[in-house]
């Protein structure tokens, strides 16, 4: 019998799909809905110290194979959000708390709050491309990534995932820095920095002008990043970017990902996309004679390196 279960840094997932941070995860009830729809784990919205309303509208542009978003990290602040986590925890899947901050101290403190709120792992958003002073702005050099990971590791006891930006000439250096700083896993990729201009309005459409590109359009970039990182580090890699079918999830697994995250696919297919993707992975494994996920992990590297 094929088995979709996977253990990532001690988190037991019944399948390798996780809800990506920032999508349908501002409220506990929505996270429950996604868990019920089949997600193997849930990553929360990226949470900061204080409440933030995010950028003014438009916050999203729909493109044929992508979304461009500049939500601007809206969130109710860690204190209020604890109640949402408590509610999400009633689902029987691991909850991973995503945090963002402007310095390693702030991030470490938030990670601690997350641990206290009861999450099973913390994900550091070192990669949001459209919030001044946060995300990619502090996660684009290996030195900063290493410093932040180390600070967090010294503060919490739960596993730490570092989510990296593809807006760099070498995501491999960032991944190595995360590993050196003690991160337990890396997550790749966050969105690519982009812009859409309205010729009629003569200005960028997003209220924030710049935003992050996600969805099918970026999948080849995400797969490439995971493939490169897998060759360079020995901690697990979690793949994310443009997955909406089981076959696409398998692409990431074969590139070296131990689990995958899914966000934008919910736009076209709703939360049910998780169940669909899992069934498709299963069908693929049945057809090609795989019985465990580990038999697929990284096989696209065989005969190389």
């Amino acid at each position: 019998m094929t088995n979709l279960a996977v253990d990532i840094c001690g988190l037991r997932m019944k399948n390798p799909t996780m809800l990506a941070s920032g999508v349908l995860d501002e409220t506990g009830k929505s996270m429950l809905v996604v868990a019920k729809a089949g997600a193997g784990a849930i990553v929360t919205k990226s949470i900061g110290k204080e409440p933030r309303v995010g950028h003014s509208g438009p916050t999203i542009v729909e493109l044929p194979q992508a979304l461009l978003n500049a939500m601007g990290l809206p969130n109710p602040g860690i204190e209020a959000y604890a109640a949402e986590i408590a509610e999400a925890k009633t689902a029987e899947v691991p909850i991973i708390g995503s945090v963002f901050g402007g310095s390693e101290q702030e991030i470490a403190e938030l990670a601690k709050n997350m641990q206290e709120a009861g999450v099973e792992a913390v994900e550091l958003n070192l990669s949001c491309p459209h919030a001044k002073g946060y995300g990619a702005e502090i996660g684009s050099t290996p030195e900063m990534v290493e410093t932040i990971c180390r600070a967090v590791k010294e503060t919490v006891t739960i596993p730490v995932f570092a989510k990296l930006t593809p807006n760099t000439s070498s995501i491999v250096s960032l991944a190595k820095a995360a590993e050196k700083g003690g991160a337990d896993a890396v997550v790749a990729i966050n969105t690519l920095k982009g812009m859409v201009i309205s010729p009629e309005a003569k200005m960028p459409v997003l209220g924030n002008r710049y935003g992050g590109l996600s969805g099918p359009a970026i999948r080849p970039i995400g797969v490439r990043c995971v493939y490169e990182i897998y060759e360079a580090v020995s901690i697990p890699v979690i793949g994310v970017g443009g997955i909406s079918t089981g076959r696409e999830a398998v692409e990431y697994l074969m590139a070296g990902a131990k689990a995958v995250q899914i966000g934008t696919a919910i736009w076209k297919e709703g939360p049910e996309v998780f169940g669909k993707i899992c069934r498709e992975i299963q069908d693929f494994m049945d057809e090609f004679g795989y019985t465990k996920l580990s038999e697929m992990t990284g096989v696209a590297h065989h005969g190389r390196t």
Partner: protein
Amino acid sequence: MRFKEPLIATAGQFVMVWVPGVDEFPMSVSYTGDRCGITYQIIGEGTKALAYKKPGEKIGLRGPYGKGFSIRGKKLLFVGGGVGMAPLAPLVEMAAAKGASVDLVLGAKTRGDLLFESRSAVAGARVHLSTDDGSIGFKGLATELAQIVVGKQSYDCMYACGPEKMLAKLLTIATEKGIPMQASLERIIKCGIGICDSCAIDGKHVCRDGPVFSEGDLRRFTELGKSKLDAAGRKIPI
């Protein structure tokens, strides 16, 4: 405000209106058919900037989004509170044109705020007015007037849009009388496409699963008329 660009929308659906350089916000479609349109109340920066636009000036539109109303039965009751009448108006017209018997309870703070009274009357609806200050029609809340109207006749379905406290009260009335109900809800809408969670109500999403919900969902909503999320995602009382 009517649009030149073609847009195929049903009553209850909404569009995201972009006022370039200012903001983007949701507006129900208040005219359907060949030339769609919206009807808005000036609330803050965004709607004020919209009001300053001259005819021919460009605004951005995306949508329509969400699930609209559907006509169920022959004897229909509509309850519109304030600008909540906007999404109901095209539905009243459609129902009347289909030969349904239409009662409309139209409420507002004061006479000047009543929306689409004559449009609905012309369409063939029996219009029952209520104002909080009694400047015209029944003096009191639309829910009080609705309670009276409901007592006189049986209805196949109730359609409502307006302040959420009003909707919650109407749900109680509909439940007591065993009348099916459809109501259009408001939450902060940012993405409009069901991914950002800012419009969440009990795990459902106003932008995608709504804005129109039926009595089944409405009864399950623990947050209805009680709490909603603000722009930062904090739960605040209604």
